């Protein structure tokens, strides 16, 4: 049984969003890290980059595969998690904590309404 915290919003592509004012923190879900297993490399977007919702802006690699991470929301990257770059295993051990990917200043907070609720995401992953 994977963990789907009740205070987050989710993208169908398995990213989570934690909103704080006009900024959101983005990472990948427990389900996603479990499917990937053994994250060995994380590539994050440059700070300052403008991204659109649904745009591939990061890459996470396991031993076997490279997977694109799609930004759940539009905005400007304001901070990236160097700790996850230095120690990619954090994405496996604390996907909702120290394994976060980046913080983004929201362009359109209305986009948050397009994201899945914890219940809807739980249903999507078939738990």
């Amino acid at each position, binding site marked *: 049984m994977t963990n789907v915290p009740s205070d987050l919003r989710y993208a169908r592509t398995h990213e989570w969003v934690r909103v704080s004012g006009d900024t959101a923190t983005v990472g990948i879900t427990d389900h996603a890290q479990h499917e990937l297993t*053994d994250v*060995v*490399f994380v*590539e994050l977007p440059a700070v300052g980059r403008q991204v659109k919702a649904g745009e591939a802006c990061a*890459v996470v690699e396991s*031993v*076997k595969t*490279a997977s694109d991470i799609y930004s759940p929301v539009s905005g400007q990257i304001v901070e990236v998690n160097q700790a996850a770059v230095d120690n990619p295993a954090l994405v496996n051990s604390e996907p909702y904590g120290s394994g976060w990917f980046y913080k983004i200043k929201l362009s359109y907070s209305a986009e948050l309404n397009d994201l899945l609720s914890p219940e809807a995401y739980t249903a999507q992953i078939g738990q």
Partner: protein
Amino acid sequence: MLKRTPLFDSHHKLGGKLVEFGGWEMPVQYTSILDEHLAVRTAAGIFDISHMGEIQVSGPAAETFLNQTLTNDLRKLDVGQGQYTLMCNERGGVIDDLYVYRIADRQYLAVVNASRTDSDVEWIKHRIASNPQASDIEFRNASDLFGAVALQGPRVNEFINTCIVGSSFAGTKVLQACDLKKNQVGLFEFTAGLGGYAIYVARTGYTGEDGFEVIAPFPVIINKIWNRILEAGQPFGLKPCGLGARDTLRTEMCYPLYGHELDESTTPIEAGLGFFVALDKGDFVGRSVLAGQKEKGVSKKCVAFKMTDKSAPPRPRYPIWSAGADAKRIGEVVSGTQSPSLGIGIGMGYVPPPFAKPGTAIEIEIRGKRFAAVVVPKPIYRKPASG
């Protein structure tokens, strides 16, 4: 419809993540490729290799026929020994790489790649049909009859005798399985409730670690062997391992994998497998091309490399570039991964001979950016000296 091995239910029960491989539904991992890899390097691991093909060739003309069909010299094999060898087409391109065991005087067992079994069978049948001694060659594709497991790792020797009990009665005769030496094969009786069954036990593998490959008929027998090994190996740190770990282990050792380092337009000489091509044994399929390459050289060579920049892991089909001011694209990665043992990106790829010398700086293009790497001697991973 994907094929399933006799151990499919067991993979499912053990939580194996199943993927397609060579037409088979196989576990890529159970818990973690890294953990499974390290279990094999430090303790023990068991792999289902039932997807691999088994071809039996026997009869008075079997040796001559096989020696004209394969690159290595079969005459070097005593009864109870096996050798790595390749089967080439007339252009010297590799149809398959395989292990051939001499089970008895005129009886051979070939273990071939799952994805190549059908091509191999077709090629061998075609060659037998046009052979003047065809009536003296018996051939059987026994792939559907046999299941197989590979038991690999430095601690395997401590418990193999509790899984495979007693002495061998054919092949290499030994008092107990652990007395087999590298590349030797023995036939053992495996007792499982209903009676005894003959199984093949060979001291071979595809990981760079000590270990055994066990080939057995009937799904019920291979399941009993698998379960017995899982139980006996548990106190020694044995883990069931999937194809993911099998791939990272073989990549660290620079063992070729068909479809990556080898294909029908690549020769064993280009792949760096000249050691397994016996040009002096008389004629065999592809010999003239391979002899020409050995004499005049090749236009591409398979090299091993390590990343020297911090980068994402190299992957198959990533471009290889020369280093320096006038850098140009010189080849392509054929195998690449993060090395679980070394913690860095490693791989193999084909480059022109001037770039093939260990120590040569190269670059690997990863998502449009180039990262520094260096050509290294094979194998990439060497076991730390013990003690």
